[in-house]
């Protein structure tokens, strides 16, 4: 049972690709080995900036021989058929066996594949894996034609057992597999030989390479938090950054440095973003003040001066970066304090979309719409308009130009600096939200009004110019915008019928851009887009899609809060015994009725008369329907769906009893018509609550 060590040693692999590459190497190699008939006991994959490595334990030494028999054409079959068989089996005619079968003499191919050694299989599998490796981007180098993420320099492919270690013979584009590797680029000596995985990992560590990414991340986090703690500080956690940084070093050396006092007045988010994006530094916070005061950088070197030169260099670079940020911040503040006029003017020259005008035109539309929405969400209309007018001003600021991810947040800082009301400043930050399905939803009324207006303007605008999402393409993030509206409405429990709002938004888009937009948005199409998004959203919350369909079919389905309330009530109702049985009763009534209507070519929709009722069960159903109707109508008017469904549930027993006792298709045509009209009452009463025809089951 040999063990295997593979290493693919290259120039620096992008940090973001390392983890997946290690996993890919593992699955490509192990799948290949298993397909070739080998088994193994254990496997683990590793990555550092310069290498992918794979360790396989307990590989079977050889695959088992395989004997395969294939029946071919008859001996007297046309030559073409026989040739085809020879091609398929890779044999020649002399190698075929002739056997007597019932239908005559038939050719048989007996193919015996001897077992193959693990080394032979491994070489084949590894070469294939290297040549077909799924790098997100790969390249050629020098005069060769092999593709790898960066130039590949050496390969270890080693099998070891009790007898010792053997290099598996393998050559890929001139790179001959061996048993040597290299340690750290600067802190280790020459290449060295290894005899197996344990030896490999141990020698790498001596050569200043920590093979395991988790171990490097652990070392970084441990050292960083310890050094910060010693100074009464804490490291701002950032798992993504930690993973990235541990892919940038083979030997992590954590250095804690101070941020120059001159920059401590910058908003903490600016410090954090600048340090992370440009320098891949962790932020270190003073828990007493909440301010970011220091940084942690992770070097790949131990130096004689204990990192003093490295830290000084990093500090200098940071100072240059932060002077830029400070320059932006101070310039921006000046313009903010002047009322942001310059920014708003410059947005007139920024195109939002060539058919939807400039950012300034877009902002004017959002402001108009926010003013209309404000009273519906309990916001002050003047504040909502004011907030919408400044909410995107920061797009012209230098800070947001430099760090687009700070949009909105800078808007809040600048609105505060401009002395605008707190609600307005809050809306500047919050109006982009919610961005994702788990993002926080704004609840402050002014923020809600602007957030809704922003998204509805985008949706009706793109609907008007017929730029709708198709398949996986949604370049303007319209699905996200619709989901944002849905969540804003539901989380805030807003009674906000959408169709009039769409009409209003569409009117505003049309009015502002007369001549540019030829048609208004098809608002019914937009509503069904919303319903699709709502279905996806509710399905994730466990609401059945057919239940939602049953409710979407009802009037008032553009009131999402109402729609969801109805769907929830119906969903709950259908889980009860009465609900389930009533549904069956309804379906039976509906089926009989539909068939009769199709056959007779008429609609049985009124005139059921108790005086033609013959059976007791029939009479009882009349009474029950009267009673249910009397309860359902007011309950529906009051949007009390639970009460309406409760009343509908009372119909279950009488409907069951009716079908038990009564034959609808009576020979007496008067009685038959009367009974069909009675079924029609069942249908219309049930359909007044929800379109049960849409419900499955």
């Amino acid at each position, binding site marked *: 049972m040999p063990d295997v060590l593979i290493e693919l040693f290259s120039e620096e692999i992008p940090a973001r690709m390392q983890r997946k590459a290690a996993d890919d190497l593992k699955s490509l190699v192990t799948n290949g080995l298993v397909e070739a008939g080998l088994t193994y006991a254990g496997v683990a994959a590793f990555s550092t900036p310069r290498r992918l490595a794979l360790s396989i334990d307990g590989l079977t030494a050889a695959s088992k021989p395989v004997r395969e028999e294939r029946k071919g054409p008859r001996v007297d079959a046309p030559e073409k058929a026989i040739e085809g068989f020879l091609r398929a089996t890779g044999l020649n005619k002399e190698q075929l066996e002739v056997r007597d079968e019932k239908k005559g003499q038939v050719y048989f191919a007996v193919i015996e594949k001897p077992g193959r050694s693990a080394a032979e299989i491994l070489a084949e599998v590894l070469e294939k894996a290297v040549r077909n490796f799924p790098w997100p981007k790969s390249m*050629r180098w020098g005069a060769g034609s092999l593709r790898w993420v960066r130039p590949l320099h050496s390969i270890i492919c080693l099998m070891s057992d009790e007898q010792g270690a053997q290099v598996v013979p393998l050559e890929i584009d001139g790179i001959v597999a061996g048993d040597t590797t290299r340690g750290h680029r600067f802190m280790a000596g020459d290449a060295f030989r290894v005899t197996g995985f344990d030896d490999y990992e141990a020698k790498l560590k001596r050569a200043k390479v920590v093979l395991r990414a988790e171990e490097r991340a652990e070392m970084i986090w441990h050292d960083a938090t310890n050094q910060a703690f010693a100074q009464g500080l804490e490291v701002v956690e950032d798992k993504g950054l930690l993973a990235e940084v541990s892919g940038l070093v083979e030997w992590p050396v954590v250095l804690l440095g101070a941020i120059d006092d001159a920059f401590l007045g910058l908003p903490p988010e600016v410090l954090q973003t600048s340090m992370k994006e440009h320098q891949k530094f962790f932020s270190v916070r003073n828990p007493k003040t909440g301010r970011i005061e220091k940084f942690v950088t992770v070097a790949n070197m131990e130096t004689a001066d204990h990192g003093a030169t*490295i830290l000084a260099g*990093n500090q200098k670079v940071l100072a240059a970066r932060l002077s830029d940020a400070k320059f932006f911040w101070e310039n921006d503040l000046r313009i903010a304090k002047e009322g942001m006029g310059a920014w708003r003017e410059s947005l007139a020259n920024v195109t939002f979309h060539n058919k939807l005008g400039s950012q300034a035109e877009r902002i004017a539309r959002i402001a108009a719409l926010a003013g209309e929405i404000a009273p519906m969400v309990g916001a002050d209309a003047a504040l909502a308009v004011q907030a919408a007018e400044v909410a995107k001003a920061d797009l012209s600021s230098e800070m947001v130009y430099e760090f687009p991810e700070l949009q909105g947040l800078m808007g809040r800082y600048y609105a505060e600096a401009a002395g605008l009301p707190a609600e307005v400043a809050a809306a500047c930050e919050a109006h982009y939200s919610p961005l994702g399905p788990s993002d926080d939803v704004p609840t402050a009324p002014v923020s809600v009004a602007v957030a809704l207006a922003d998204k509805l303007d985008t949706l009706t605008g793109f609907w008007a110019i017929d730029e709708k999402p198709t398949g996986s393409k949604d370049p303007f993030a319209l699905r996200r915008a619709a989901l944002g509206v849905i969540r804003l409405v539901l989380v805030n429990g807003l009674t906000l019928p959408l169709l009039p709002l769409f009409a209003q938004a569409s009117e505003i888009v049309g009015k502002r851009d007369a001549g540019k937009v030829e048609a208004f948005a098809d608002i019914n199409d937009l509503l069904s887009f919303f319903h699709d998004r709502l279905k996806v959203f509710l399905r994730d919350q466990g609401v059945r899609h057919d239940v939602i369909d049953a409710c979407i079919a009802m009037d008032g389905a553009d009131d999402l809060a109402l729609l969801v309330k109805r769907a929830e009530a119906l969903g709950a109702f259908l889980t009860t015994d009465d609900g389930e049985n009533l549904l069956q009763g309804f379906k039976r009534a509906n089926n009989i009725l539909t068939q009769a209507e199709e056959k007779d070519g008429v609609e049985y929709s009124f005139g059921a008369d108790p005086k033609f009722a013959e059976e007791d069960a029939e009479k009882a159903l009349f009474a029950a329907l009267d009673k249910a109707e009397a309860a359902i109508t007011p309950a529906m008017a009051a949007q009390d769906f639970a009460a309406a469904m409760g009343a509908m549930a009372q119909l279950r027993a009488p409907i069951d009893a009716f079908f038990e006792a009564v034959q609808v298709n009576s020979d007496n045509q008067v009685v038959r018509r009367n009974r069909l009209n009675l079924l029609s009452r069942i249908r219309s009463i049930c359909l007044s609550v929800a379109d049960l025809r849409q419900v499955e089951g």
Partner: protein
Amino acid sequence: MTDKPRSFQEIILRLQSYWAAKGCAVLQPYDMEVGAGTFHPATTLRSLGTQPWAAAYVQPSRRPTDGRYGENPNRLQHYYQYQVLIKPSPPDLQALYLGSLEAIGIDANLHDIRFVEDDWESPTLGAWGLGWEVWCDGMEVSQFTYFQQVGGHDCHPVSGELTYGLERLAMYVLGVDHVMGMPFNDPDAPIALRYGDVFRQTEEEYSRHNFDVADTEKLLRHFEDAEAECQRLLEAPVEDPKTGKRIIMAHPAYDQCIKASHLFNLLDARGVISVTERQAYIGRVRALAKLCADAFVQTEAGGYVA
């Protein structure tokens, strides 16, 4: 301990002798306005085709939008790049590069030198490659790229390209905070000159020119002219009627492409190109670059064999 250079020009001289010693032909700057060292035909055109190549040179580069009237500590509208191009890329190119850092006084045992993913793309040249930006103690000191495509052509063999931003690198090595304060020649020379003595005034003049005064109508016209001329030169018959020789004017045409590219940069700095137009202009320059690349590979230097 490596001895430290004392001036901007010493860093350039050391790079020149280092790469000369490593076998590169040390070329001179191209005599046209370009946005980066990559535009020099010694890189753009020579990275095409099968002929081996090894060149190193300083290239003055202009980015009109980066002008700051000489006030910004490290932003300039005119600056220098040091460029190395070797085809095919040698297997030890990283080691060669690190050697060049040592040559200018960066001791790898004292600093933290890292290769951080940075894929290079030039939409105007229709070119891209994979590589890194090289960090020294957190500062980007070079761009390191394996060219994959230039002018729409796959690079075969692949060239390795190194680009050093000279001012920034020198400021770091010399420990200078403001580019204008950096010693240009030796600080102990009888007439010691700082970078600002050479360039502060020109930065001011060009900033004013680029941002506010350059005549946009003329620039637009020159752009159109350069574009038309580039196309015309390449449409000329391959055989020169006077000499009867096969002469494809790839380089003269490429000069017009460079011109168009720089005129576009000037127009951009003047703020007369809208976001949507921008893409269209870049596409027009790229189309020229592609035509020139197509032409170059039909020449002897581009690997054409009669």
